[in-house]
């Protein structure tokens, strides 16, 4: 079946609403407007205003209400338009969603799913181009998902809704229009493991979310130069699939981590640290990283491009790692 990332996500939401009457979608303009990125288009007409619930501009309020509704037995899907607006709800996410289970000594779990758009690349300027999923991955108590493929856009949501604890799903804005084939019987997928998107022997390119297409491009270019790169899609940023990361590095002996977040204190720093802690003697080269330049994302196209991980920069980093003799 031909579909897009956006439609796969919509199918997943529709499927969840049909499977479980406790599920509802809530957020700004998810209903009458059809969703700011048209993910929920048509669902308002299909399921009505109770279950496709438009909210005022009140991120702290409706995210917190989602947590409360989850405590009260519902299975909310809360949509935050984009990751920058999640900052207005950070208190509810970090101080409530992530802590209630622990503070209550295991009594109160929060079965909540929050979806939001993330990432740069569309000339939206400094306030609308953040990649903060790595930041959220710092928080114990949250599970962080970054679907990068049609299968994951279709399949992660239901598994997330079955999770007893809060799950945040980050959808990269440049992925919504990605089109391709999806099996007719595509359904729920696991939300705990990384996936090899291209097997290879010479170097592990480790990435997630919006940069997966650029990394796959880079791998194709590298193949033309005789470098056989393995592409590992993390899929889940917390908890990280250590076994998959270390297994790939044990095979290739080299790694470059590609992450659209800023370099300092990033998820790529965490991955690099885990590799050196656990696979130091497998390595033939220092772990490389390709991240965003440490600057709020500029509007001008040429500057924005220069700030972001591109296939060109990934290829260069891979060459450098492979050129290093072990």
């Amino acid at each position: 079946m031909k579909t897009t990332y956006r439609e796969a996500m919509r199918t997943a939401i529709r499927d969840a609403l049909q499977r479980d009457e406790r599920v509802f979608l809530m957020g700004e303009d998810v209903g009458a407007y059809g969703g700011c990125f048209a993910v929920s288009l048509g669902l308002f007409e299909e399921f009505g205003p109770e279950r496709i619930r438009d909210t005022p501009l009140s991120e702290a309020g409706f995210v917190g209400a989602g947590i409360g509704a989850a405590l009260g037995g519902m299975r909310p899907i809360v949509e935050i338009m984009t990751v920058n607006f999640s900052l207005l709800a950070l208190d509810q996410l970090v101080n409530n969603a992530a802590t209630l289970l622990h503070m209550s000594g295991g009594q109160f779990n929060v079965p909540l799913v929050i979806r939001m758009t993330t990432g740069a690349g569309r000339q939206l300027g400094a306030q609308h181009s953040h990649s903060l999923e790595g930041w959220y991955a710092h928080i114990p108590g949250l599970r962080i998902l970054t679907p990068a493929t049609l299968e994951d856009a279709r399949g992660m949501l239901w598994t997330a809704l079955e999770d007893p604890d809060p799950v945040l799903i980050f959808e990269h804005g440049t992925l919504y229009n990605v089109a391709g084939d999806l099996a007719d019987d595509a359904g729920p997928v696991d939300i705990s493991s990384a996936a090899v998107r291209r097997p290879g022997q010479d170097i592990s390119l480790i990435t997630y979310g919006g940069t997966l297409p650029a990394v796959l491009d880079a791998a194709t270019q590298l193949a033309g130069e005789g470098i056989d790169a393995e592409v590992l899609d993390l899929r889940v940023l917390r908890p990280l699939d250590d076994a998959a990361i270390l297994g790939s590095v044990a095979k290739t002996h080299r790694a470059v981590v590609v992450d659209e977040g800023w370099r300092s204190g990033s998820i790529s720093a965490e991955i690099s640290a885990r590799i050196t802690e656990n696979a130091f003697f497998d390595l033939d080269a220092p772990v490389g990283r390709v991240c965003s330049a440490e600057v709020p994302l500029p509007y001008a196209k040429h500057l924005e491009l220069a700030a972001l991980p591109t296939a060109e920069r990934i290829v260069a980093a891979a060459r450098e790692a492979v050129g290093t003799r072990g």
Partner: protein
Amino acid sequence: MTGTSARGTGNADSDHARHLLRQMLRVRRLEEQCVELYSAAKIRGFLHVYIGEEAVAAGVTSTLAPDDAVVATYREHGHALLRGVPAGAILAEMYGHVEGCCRGRGGSMHLFDAGTRFYGGNAIVAGGLPLAVGLALADKMSGRSRVTVCFFGEGAVAEGAFHESLNLAALWQLPVLFCCENNLYAMGTALARSESQTDIALKAAGYEIASWSADGMDVLAVEEAARRAVDAVRAGGGPHFLELRTYRFRAHSMFDPERYRDKKEVSRWMERDPINTLRTALEASGQLSAKDWKSIQQDVDTEVEAAVEFAEAGTPEPLEDLTRFVYSERSPE
């Protein structure tokens, strides 16, 4: 306060009314040009235009002194222009050129200009209100009699920052004027679908802030309401709040298919176009001749054409400068 009454027929009044007409037209033409340039892919990112709402910015800014401050939203091209940011610098910004008012770093949603005390250009709904409160706090603490005006849409009223800001401003009696541009929709969400109490001026009154509403399609009514409020704020009367009832004629942004409102509703509001309304009233009272109107249009067209040329001729910032302006650049001691 409905129906423009082109008060007074004295020369000064006529000149001033024609000035307001010209100001609104400058905004209208600049915005129309932006839409065109967006379609031609010269401007990218998100673009929100102010077409239909010109009377609000024109009426309010005409009451301000040069050293007053303005804080606005992502729908701020008109406010910037009317505060004195050159049209060329605004367009060059949207081209991503270094000649832009923010060197092409900000784009359409983030126009700033220190020279005219224009503090943005904020793309977080209600994000500007606390800044305005702080600017006013600084003025009060420094004993200056400046006014800070903060523009925001009615969508902002649901955010916590709105309520926290109003309370602080009232508690500390700060010289700030809050201007709510109530165009009835926050993206696709109608006011009545998002507020339990839709009388916005009443909410402000709940914080003990003097507040009233005005017809935002009538520039003279806006100006009169704003003048009263600005004078009171400047005289030490504490924060004031205006709800300006207006309507956006165009989509929320360039990505909005407008499924949420009726075409008939839009055309009803378009009959109250603030520019046509004032123009017709001035013509009827003999304050605007065909020649006057033609010359206003010509001047405005010339200004916008020159701005496009300026933006077109602009240059991209060198890539080596990518990581500038993350921290302040201090000259060596």
